[in-house]
């Protein structure tokens, strides 16, 4: 694939699916520096994945999978190298949060998601984005039954926590 073609496809994907990348960033990285770092890692992996895409799955599914894989790998690496972290210069920042879009309920939901392990986080994001159990299973390489069992537990946990939150007015 020619670099120009790769660049064109990448830009098209980024324009259409950046929201999906933002969700993964927010679920896996918890401060602006880490979010920037993870976003950079994910976009690099998405860029590298462009020539490998054969169109067998929807672009959104493909990008989600690449993003999850990058995020899980990044989390592991991040744990190992947290002390050696290099500060990214302010002017190099890739993401800027729009503060006027703060939504306390959404913040709470992301906080709940962040408490799950890496795999469950991926499953939850796909479920909340409306993917079917079959699609989730295919994306993650899991059986439909297993996905169903896992997601029912996660749903139960989330609704229980939300009820506690409502009860205590948190």
């Amino acid at each position, binding site marked *: 694939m020619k670099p120009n073609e790769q660049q064109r496809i990448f830009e098209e994907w*980024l324009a259409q699916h*950046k*929201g999906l990348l*933002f*969700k993964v*960033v*927010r679920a896996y990285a918890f401060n602006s520096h880490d*979010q920037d770092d993870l*976003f*950079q890692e994910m*976009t*690099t992996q998405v*860029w590298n994945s462009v020539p*490998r*895409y*054969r169109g*067998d*799955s929807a672009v959104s599914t493909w990008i989600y*999978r690449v993003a*999850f*894989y990058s995020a*899980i790998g990044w989390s*592991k690496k991040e744990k*190992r190298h947290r002390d050696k972290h290099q500060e990214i210069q302010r*002017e*190099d*920042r*890739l*993401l*800027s*949060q*729009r503060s006027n*879009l703060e*939504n306390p*309920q*959404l913040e709470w*939901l992301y906080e709940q998601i962040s408490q799950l*392990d*890496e*795999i469950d986080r*991926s499953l939850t994001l796909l479920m*909340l*984005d*409306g993917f079917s159990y079959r699609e989730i299973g*295919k*994306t*993650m*390489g*899991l059986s439909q039954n297993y996905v169903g069992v896992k997601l029912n537990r996660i*749903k139960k946990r*989330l*609704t229980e926590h*939300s*009820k506690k*939150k*409502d009860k205590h007015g948190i």
Partner: protein
Amino acid sequence: MEFEDLKVIWDSQCDQPIYGINEEGLHNSLRRKSKRFRRLIFWQHFQTYCGGGIMFAAIVGLLILNASGVLGEIGSSRALFGWEIAASLVALVCWLQFTLSVFLGHQRQKKREQVESTSLRDDLDKEIKQIRYQIKTRSHIMLGFLPPYLGGVLFITVVFGATHISYWVLVPFVVLMIIALLFESRCQQRMVELKIVPALAELETLREKLSH
């Protein structure tokens, strides 16, 4: 709150993106990364093939000079003995084997990278396979580097003999090469123990989570 309410909260973020992207910064970073990667690959290939090419040219050149009778007429050098010709051929085979194995390794790696994976589990399997391959090659690093080291020593022995340089001069050279080989092997082993094995363990834990 029921799950449907959580879904409504979740969907609310789709109305407007929560981040702005510094597009120029992003493209600069991608360009930088792919340039760095291409340069790294280029140098890896360049060093191996250049080393192989130089040794191939030197050994074949020496054999041609010997066969044409020119070698015996250059300065104080003499024509090669039968065992020296055989040693040169062994050195040539050693270097060809090394260069070819590196070339084939690169080709296999390229093929592996091109295989499309369809799920996160496939990605993990691919990565685990790749790391296991790296551990395997690094565990046998002594065997891997033995042919070029042996080829180098044989070639130098032949050149020293043909040019009447004392074989004693070879001793520090051989010792140095053995130390370099042991050092390289130890470095690679440490890399496996400290970096590669922990990375593999983490990937296998993730893989396990996906299996149960």
